[in-house]
């Protein structure tokens, strides 16, 4: 069996665009991986002294050396384009995606894209298939400019679970590109869109001034009083900092960028910095957090046409737009894939 025949020989069929479906076999609860995580909420101040900290007046000095000069964002755009069946009858989704990462540099207040990487990838759970067939498929994809990403998840009869596994695989590959973007100049103050832990290895947590900006909050770190404070934050106010210790120890805090919105937690971002860097280089000077928060607040998106504007900052938005311009429309890519594979 050679190349693209792999798909047909395993009964591959096209899949139209569809919304993610509910899990069939379980409730879909994701492992939070929080079990081994330590947190210290009373890092900046004791819990009974938690209150909103205004940062609007905390203007950093002109020559403050930690102002972020690089902004990194990644993108994973694709969909499940086909599914095939193992000999045991497991439905296996095939995900086609374009992934990429870009770094925007602040050069005298002008944002310029200084790094970009874009790849076309196909991910599939490979365990149920003979390796030589998978390899032949990967080579055929490579010849057409697609990189094959083998997904090592265990087969299941839950198509949605399989789909998420292939999506996670392309996201992992995107994370690698982001790490590459970060590693180019990690000694420069850099702000990354997302958590820092997935980017570990691309920066030195003891010396590199890297900041993570988390826009989507999947987890709750705060105690009840902290959550109440979170909802009461006004634009330009932050919570006290707390520390999270896992593979990477970070100092983290919440900041409200925008107050216009119907949801009480709308417009709030979480920032995190390596704890080692904060304690060894910054000497745990909390004014660093105030200055950084002030800058992030000043960089907030003010446009209304960008859907994530209330929780994003302009340089990251530009990175996303700039990267998006390098991408091919998904459906164009999908049709090309169908033509190559004769599906």
């Amino acid at each position, binding site marked *: 069996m050679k190349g693209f025949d792999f798909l047909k020989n395993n009964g591959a069929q096209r899949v139209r665009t569809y919304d993610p479906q509910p899990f069939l076999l379980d409730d879909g609860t994701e492992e939070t991986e929080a079990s081994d995580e330590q947190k210290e909420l009373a890092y900046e101040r004791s819990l009974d002294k938690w209150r909103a900290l205004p940062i609007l007046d905390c203007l950093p000095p002109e020559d403050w050396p930690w102002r972020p000069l690089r902004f990194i964002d990644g993108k994973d755009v694709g969909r499940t384009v086909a599914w095939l069946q193992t000999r045991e009858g497991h439905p296996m989704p095939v995900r086609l995606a374009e992934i990429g990462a870009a770094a925007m540099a*602040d050069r005298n*207040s002008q*944002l310029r894209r200084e790094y970009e990487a874009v790849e076309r990838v196909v991910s599939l759970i490979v365990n149920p298939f003979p390796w030589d067939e998978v390899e032949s498929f990967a080579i055929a994809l490579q010849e057409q400019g697609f990189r094959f990403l083998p997904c090592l998840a265990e087969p299941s009869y839950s198509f949605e679970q399989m789909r998420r596994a292939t999506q996670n695989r392309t996201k992992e590959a995107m994370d690698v590109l982001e790490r590459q973007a970060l590693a180019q100049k990690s000694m420069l103050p850099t702000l990354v869109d997302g958590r820092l832990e997935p980017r570990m290895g691309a920066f030195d947590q003891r010396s590199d001034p890297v900041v993570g900006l988390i826009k989507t909050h999947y987890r709750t770190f705060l105690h009840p009083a902290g959550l109440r404070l979170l909802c009461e934050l006004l634009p330009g106010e932050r919570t006290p900092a707390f520390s999270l210790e896992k593979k990477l120890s970070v100092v983290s805090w919440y900041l409200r960028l925008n107050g216009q919105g119907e949801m009480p937690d709308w417009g709030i971002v979480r920032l995190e910095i390596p704890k080692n860097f904060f304690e060894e280089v910054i000497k745990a000077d909390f004014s660093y957090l105030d200055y950084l928060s002030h800058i992030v607040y000043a*960089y907030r998106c*003010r446009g209304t046409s960008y859907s994530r504007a209330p929780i994003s900052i302009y340089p990251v938005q530009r990175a996303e737009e700039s990267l998006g311009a390098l991408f091919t429309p998904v459906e164009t890519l999908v049709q090309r894939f169908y033509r190559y594979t004769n599906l």
Partner: protein
Amino acid sequence: MNRENMTTEDAPVCLGVVGSPQGQEATSKQYCFWVARGVMVEETQLVVCESVIAGQSYTFYGVVEEVKRRSRKKSMDEEIDQADGDTEYVPPFESDGYTYAQVSILSVEPAALTPPCERSKVYLANQSQAATAYGADDIEEGNALPTGLIKNGGAQLAGPGAIDLDYLLGVNGGHLNVNGSAGRGTKSSLLLYVVRMLLDYARNQEVSSANRRQIVPIILNVKNYDLFYIDYPNNRFKPERDLADWRLLGVEQPTPFQNVSFFAPQQAKVNLPVPTGRDEGVKAYS
């Protein structure tokens, strides 16, 4: 304008790159290009772009019809929201706006009725390319009459423009249509200039040539009496300002018309021309 403003034949200046997104598709008549940072593009500039289509390289000559500037904001609401209505507000980052230009295609070499491809680089045309753009390279040798200087933007020139005399003196046509604002003197001046260049052209032909042109201009004065002074030097002529332009057109030293005969309608009941402001040399006719 002087020689220093001439577009040179030196290294071509890349102005930008063709873009053809949805809604702004390139056609065989026009296309758009985005303008490179730090480059100024102006209306009337002549531009050249090369595109490889189906394995064949084509050169598209065009003129910039319109230059547009666009910010990244989707509406004026966002423009004002960015500053919260405060005119003194300075955003933390420079605007990421950009300029793009719309080009009308004048000619394609080799001839083709097709648009240029996106991502083709666009260059400012030099003098020879400007001539090609307007088809001057199709004019038979010795048959081109310099008819003014081609503007290449607000301050630059792209050499003389030329009229094919076969279309002016009767071989293929005998007509020149000049359009312009009324009362500015530009249309009359241009026509006088063409007459002047035609006379020079005839004078420079071999006397013994069988093809020598015989030019006898007849000018009809229809308002005011300015044309009764065409044998006088123009008191607005400033050599330090204007001479270089004349020389670009091949005229070393511009002079008034010579050996001009003036006629004016005869006054009623007397054998005198109507007053024209000119004391002598005007003959009455009826």
